[in-house]
């Protein structure tokens, strides 16, 4: 069996959906961050796969992925910092508790 592009794309899509699902259902903000990582990684996979299978002569997708990984790391760091702040102020990292401002 030859591994065509679709075998990579489907898991990546599933990953992305899992990420979305996790984001929407989990209450713990750290878990939400993990879900976000899932989504970003799904994007990375996509880029790499497209590069590898469709445009093997160039490296654009690869480079993009590299940068995206870096950006994801930065995001996570910042997010965790803010979550810690939130925790300090409200003693909770339940995402449903941070809804004082609404309507």
């Amino acid at each position: 069996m030859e591994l065509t592009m679709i075998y990579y794309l489907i898991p990546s899509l599933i990953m992305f959906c899992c990420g979305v699902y996790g984001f929407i259902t989990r209450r713990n903000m750290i878990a939400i961050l993990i879900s976000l990582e899932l989504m970003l990684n799904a994007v990375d996979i996509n880029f790499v796969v497209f590069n590898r299978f469709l445009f093997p002569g160039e490296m654009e997708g690869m480079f993009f992925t590299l940068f995206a990984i870096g950006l994801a790391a930065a995001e996570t760091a910042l997010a965790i910092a803010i979550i810690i702040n939130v925790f300090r102020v409200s003693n909770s990292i339940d995402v449903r508790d941070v809804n004082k401002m609404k309507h």
Partner: protein
Amino acid sequence: MDYSQFLAMRQEIGLLIVFLLVFLYDTFMPKKALNATAGFTTILFLLFTVASFIWGNIGDVDAFAGMYSTSGVCSMIKNILNVGVLIVLIQSCRWANGELMIMRRGEFYELLLVTLFGMYLMISARHFLLFVIGLESASLPLAAMVAFDKNRYESHEAAIKYMLTAVFSSAVFMMGLSFVYGLSGSLYFHDIALQLGSSFNTTLVVALAFVIAGVGFKLSLVPFHLWTADVYQGAPTSVTSYLSVISKGAAAFAFLVILVQCFGQFYSMVWEWMLYALIIATITIGNLFAIRQKNMKRFLAFSSISQAGYIMLGIVGCNDMGLAAMMYYILVYIFSNLAAFGVIGAIENQTGKVEMTDYNGLSRTNPWLACSMMLAMFSLAGIPPFAGFFSKFFIFTSAINQGSVAIYILVLIALINTIISLYYYLLVVKAMYISPDEPQIANFRSASSERLGLWITVGGIVALGIVSFFYDSIMEAASGSALFAFIG
């Protein structure tokens, strides 16, 4: 590699120099001198702004194999943003020098300059990698800025909301991008357009929707706007004003560039209609939410959502006139909104009050603040002879230039929405001027920096429209741009 290409990036480099100087000053100057950080930054930025006006425009230049491109329009929009940032800096002096900020004001300025740098990249990027870097560096530091009010819970709530939704949004955006890459094989705007040709399929449409959603998030287009109100309300006022005008302005321009450069050939088939839907939703929902807001910042958040809808009308027109109208709109919007935020900030810094009912009878105790606020409201509502009228008129004109009946209906809906918006802007005026209640805010003298900021913004509100020079020069810059080559 030809390092002279960096010369094309002179505005970015200038900004970096400002950033570095501020960083160095903050890091190495003695404690006493740190009191002058705000002034130092402002003056430095003022110099940079002036320099950028004088030497910024080097005509159409592509650098780094087309990853980066600058032109008259790009430097113009950057200059416009500079002016806005300058006003924000002036207005935030008092806040930055406040008790709570003493330890961290340098960081505030550094973060701010970094985000501005990110926006510069968004504007000038002609390659998605550069664009994403710009986008992220324009939004991530903002999350930190939003969280700047350490002691206020709202500030943190706003920050986490902004952070999580922003990352989600960039995930979606990059998802869309990955499919665009998959379909075209390139991340250069130019190449994408060439590779895609004029054929499109479902995947591309959905990918395009994702891309629009990603940028629309920055612009707070409905339904990608939900973070806006909470973040604006929670963030420190100076940050809110920065968020509401500068980052929106940059995003709007970048949005236009992406749409016309990458997907220009699908204009009338695909995204014109998407934009119609988005514009109607944005303007209407923004207005409907705004009419019952009590918190001034939240109120202005929704108002800025609907203003974003009007800005989008400039894109719909998809021509030089629309580009000019959009930039002019951004310029006027910067002044009007900053005038409003200036008053809010001045009052908040003095009394801590941000509710609309607190403004009752303001005209009797603080006539000048009330007057500035009123002018800002009139300008936002598009009442002549204030600048907002001209910008609205021009943006409608440019949209209708496209000529179809559909656009007339779109503009009509937008116009009817201006009535709703007039209603809530007048509510503020009513509170200040008409409400018979006992004034909540005693007479006070605002800081000279705040007053300077207000003078500048009010002067802009009055002059930007009546003096045709501003529009004319923007139009001149826009008419030379080659942005719309792919429309058809």
